[in-house]
């Protein structure tokens, strides 16, 4: 819903009603506005996922309390009042603090979905790898929590026709590192196919790149080559440019 500045109560309630008219699935409710959030949560028939809380002081006081009051599952991101932590260590520090706070309130790890915050590869290539590393160690840090990412943000700023392959490759890479779930572009049929375990050859190639094994790019067809080059860019092995598939 975004900030839902106008009539937040009405908008929150309308949206949940409208969605529940067409599906019985549980709802992940996303707004920065606590009034809109509460109005929506009140109407959810299935146990919802509150998207999202964070380590920011106003989030701890607002969203976290709503999660408790309505007994929701809750996404907790690594963001703090200082912004998005710049590397793995500071992401760890932030999430440990915020989850400890949630635990003290009575929210169990099993109800927490951790969001490492995905940043665009075109804006800050290093962050893409930091989030990957974070997902890899999350299960050891906080047993029982799930993970979730806003996947398409990795390709924000990249020309539209090229966004899909960044999203898809990054999904495979995050999955290899243990990612539990992603908020993703369901209108991308190739992404859905990969998500269902299709295209094992592509998955195998991406895994090889992540494991540092050598891949002879000359032996590959264009599709395979594109995934390999994309994985290398997302790992930070080659410098990103909008022309990364052309080099």
């Amino acid at each position, binding site marked *: 819903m975004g900030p839902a500045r106008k009539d937040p109560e009405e908008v929150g309630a309308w949206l949940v009603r409208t969605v529940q008219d067409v599906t019985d699935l549980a709802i992940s409710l996303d707004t920065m506005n606590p009034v809109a959030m509460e109005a929506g949560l009140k109407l959810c028939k299935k146990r919802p996922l509150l998207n999202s809380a964070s380590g920011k002081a106003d989030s701890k006081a607002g969203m976290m309390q709503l999660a408790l009051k309505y007994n929701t599952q809750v996404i907790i991101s690594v963001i703090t009042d200082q912004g998005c932590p710049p590397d793995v260590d500071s992401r760890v520090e932030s999430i440990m603090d915020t989850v400890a706070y949630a635990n003290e309130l009575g929210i169990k790890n099993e109800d927490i979905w951790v969001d490492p915050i995905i940043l665009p590869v*075109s804006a800050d290539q290093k962050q893409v790898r930091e989030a990957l590393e974070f997902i890899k160690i999350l299960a050891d840090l906080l047993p029982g929590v799930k993970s979730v990412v806003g996947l398409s943000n990795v390709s924000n700023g990249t020309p539209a026709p090229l966004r899909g392959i960044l999203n898809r490759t990054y999904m495979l890479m995050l999955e290899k590192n243990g990612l539990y779930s992603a908020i993703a572009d369901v209108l991308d049929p190739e992404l859905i196919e990969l998500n269902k375990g299709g295209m094992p050859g592509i998955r195998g190639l991406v895994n090889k790149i992540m494991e540092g094994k050598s891949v002879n790019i000359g032996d590959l067809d264009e599709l395979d080559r594109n995934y390999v080059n994309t994985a290398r860019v997302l790992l930070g092995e*080659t*410098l*990103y*440019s*909008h*022309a990364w598939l*052309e*080099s």
Partner: protein
Amino acid sequence: MEYKAPLETYSGRVKEVVIGKRDKAVKIGGENILPLHYFEGNAANKPKVALEIDDSGAVGWPEWVREPYKDVVSDPVRWAKRCLDLGADLICLRLESTDPQGANTSAEEAAALVKKVVAEVETALIVYGCGDDKKDAEVLSRVAEVCRDENLLLGPAVKENYEPLGRAVADNGHCIIAQTPIDINLEKELNVKLLKQLPPERIVIDPLSSALGYGMEYSFTIMERTKQIGVIHGDFAMQMPIIADLGGECWKTSQAKASREQGILWEGITAMSLLLAGANLLVLRHPDNCRMIKEAIDGKL
């Protein structure tokens, strides 16, 4: 046991670009080391210094940088020869008058002037357009044709005009300046696009040079990263030499206009910094700085 200092060696090498031809040729790049780290490996060519001239009579240049040329600024050929007498390795001719916001000289006139300078001046030539991407594509393409096979360094090619300009440069035997606005990702993108038209030995990177106090540290960082990515990480699309076109940027600052001493220092410090960052070719205006930077390059400072 004798102590031997450990040395870093790198897998990448900056491409050698040759500007001009025969005895007028000037070579830049070719190193497999970080800037000025001569002890680490091998640098085929030391950085080179160009002095700048234009076709508009140095309009707007502060008097202390105009002074060494004041009797020749209306004649680009004599001005270029003066620059060589003052120690420049090569000449950078800026076609200021082609600017549609200014005198709007035609492509034909500009090309005729370049041809004349090429014929009469005993060194390699860099030719910069006025910075209007449409006009530059027209003017520089014509310069490329009229001066066919003279192997000029022509630019700037930017995102908006690299296709026609790259074609004209490739078809007529010249080198091109790939210019992007202080952004490493856009820099690589333009290089990748130009590499489809030209070999890397015919491309020079212009990441935009800002003056001291006006964002020089951004230019420094981009040049430094370009070298690291090309030399240390061996990225083929980032292995072209770098041009630091900084004289004009420095001499338009209020600090440079305030006094002779301050102006020379402003350009000198900017030049020295960007030399350390990895520039292979510097475009300057004041002869004192040309001399000083060349001494620094030769290790005499």
